[in-house]
């Protein structure tokens, strides 16, 4: 199943289903993301990509199956009879190592770019302010926004906001980064600067799981494509194979 059996996969999704009262988001989905791999989750709107991503850090609960991140069972404790949901504090601790980037950036509006990037280290990891500031400035520099450190989100373009959001997620030094449609809310030109940032992370070996409609990300940045349709995985292939010879009808 795993490409590198001696290594724990960064993310392991095992037979996971998610359904609400009447509707089912996806059923019996399984895949592994090895460390350092970049996986693009493709598929039509409503295929369950975003919901699946939100299950990986337990922003959404799951209905069946198990999700592991670096070997840790996410959101639940394995009991004799059932999986018991963990406490708020325990789940929060698990989320510290799982970064997330949102379609609408979700930068904290009342904080500057710098404060946004510092918020995780300071409030979650209780790091000293000086240390967090230095780290945050480095990260802002890395996404090319050192000059905007004191700007509020409302003063930044969408592309700039998304790059700050990526820096905010990186400040927690996540083992895996989940990106939920990171370019969907941006016009092509601004999307491009975000794609470049993501590509840089990919080259550094950051493990990423990206739900996207952006073919540029799927083709040029991702190592592998998982194509979801109707709540199931329709195709799971290396990125270049997927784009040269797709097997499923819909992907074609």
């Amino acid at each position: 199943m795993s490409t590198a059996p001696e290594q724990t996969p960064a993310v392991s999704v095992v037979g996971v289903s998610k359904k609400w009262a009447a509707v089912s988001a996806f059923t019996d989905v399984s895949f592994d993301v090895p460390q350092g791999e970049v996986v693009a989750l493709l598929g039509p709107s409503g295929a369950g990509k975003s919901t699946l991503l939100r299950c990986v850090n337990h922003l959404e609960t799951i209905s069946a199956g198990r999700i592991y991140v670096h070997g840790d069972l996410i959101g639940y404790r394995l009991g004799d009879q059932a999986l018991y949901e963990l406490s708020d504090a325990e789940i929060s601790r698990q989320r510290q190592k799982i970064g997330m980037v949102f379609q609408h950036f979700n930068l904290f509006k009342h904080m500057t770019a710098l404060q946004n990037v510092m918020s995780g280290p300071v409030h979650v990891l209780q790091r000293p302010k000086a240390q967090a500031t230095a780290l945050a400035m480095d990260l802002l520099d890395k996404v090319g926004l050192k000059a905007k450190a004191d700007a509020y989100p409302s003063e930044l373009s969408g592309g700039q906001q998304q790059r700050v959001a990526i820096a905010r997620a990186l400040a927690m030094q996540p083992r895996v980064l989940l990106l939920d449609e990171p370019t969907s809310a941006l016009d092509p030109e601004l999307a491009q600067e975000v794609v470049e940032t993501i590509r840089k992370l990919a080259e550094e070996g950051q493990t990423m799981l990206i739900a996207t409609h952006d073919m540029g990300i799927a083709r040029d940045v991702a190592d592998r494509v998982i194509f979801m349709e109707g709540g199931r995985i329709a195709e799971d292939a290396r990125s270049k194979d997927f784009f040269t010879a797709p097997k499923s009808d819909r992907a074609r």
Partner: protein
Amino acid sequence: MAMTDRLSAPELPIVHRRRWGAWLLGAVALVVVVTIVHAAIRARIVNLGVFADYIFDPLIVMGAVNALMLGTLALFIATIIGFIAALMRVSGNPILVAISATYVYLFRGTPMLIQLIFWFNAVPIMFPSITISLPFMAEPLVSTPTTSLVTPFLAALAGLSLAEGAYMSEIIRAGILAVDKGQRAAATALGMTQRQVLAQVVIPQAGRIIIPAAGNQYIMLLKSSSLASAIGYLELLRVATDIYSSNFQVVELLAVAAFWYLVMTAFATAIQTVLEKVFPQR
């Protein structure tokens, strides 16, 4: 004139239309105001001498200070009550939601004056004496009839805080709901506990949203403190009433009281303006 003439005409100044209607209305309004003020002055409804005599009267100033204290303390307590009630209301727990909704309905749905008089009279009946005792001691530490504790001030403070808390809970709830869900999701995804999400993201943002509405409520409360005159608390209106019932200078003393209420309102407005500057919405 032919079209070509118009096009070839030299640079002409541009004249915008005059808003004659608006000017006319303004003039009419001004005449009405001047007529009313003139009539009031001619009728000498306020004897300015008497007004000046009482404006800095120590009793009046004390009454104004008492009103300001009562209104301000009530706002603080109401904010705490309102915050708790709002959190209960958005908790999703049906029992907490029902308790909070019932509280808001009862206390928003009855006149403040009734509530004030009610607490002043009902609490001593419900709890005739207040006893604080320590274990392993035969005699209680403190035992006193409640009527000696429920002063007009405490009854007024409790009444105003509880009534205002119902309004504040709705304002705070609206503020919490106005914080984008994505903000909470982002904070949660960073690894913040629910308490941290509340402290770092929801309260700072909701707080900014509710400042104008809370400022409004503060002004209302400062004026509602006059209701405490009904249960004998020596606030501004009560003091003014006591004075004019002996010297019959009713209009002058009401004008004096009104003046101090305006000063308080200016004070509240200034605080609101400063808060909005320090905590701007982004």
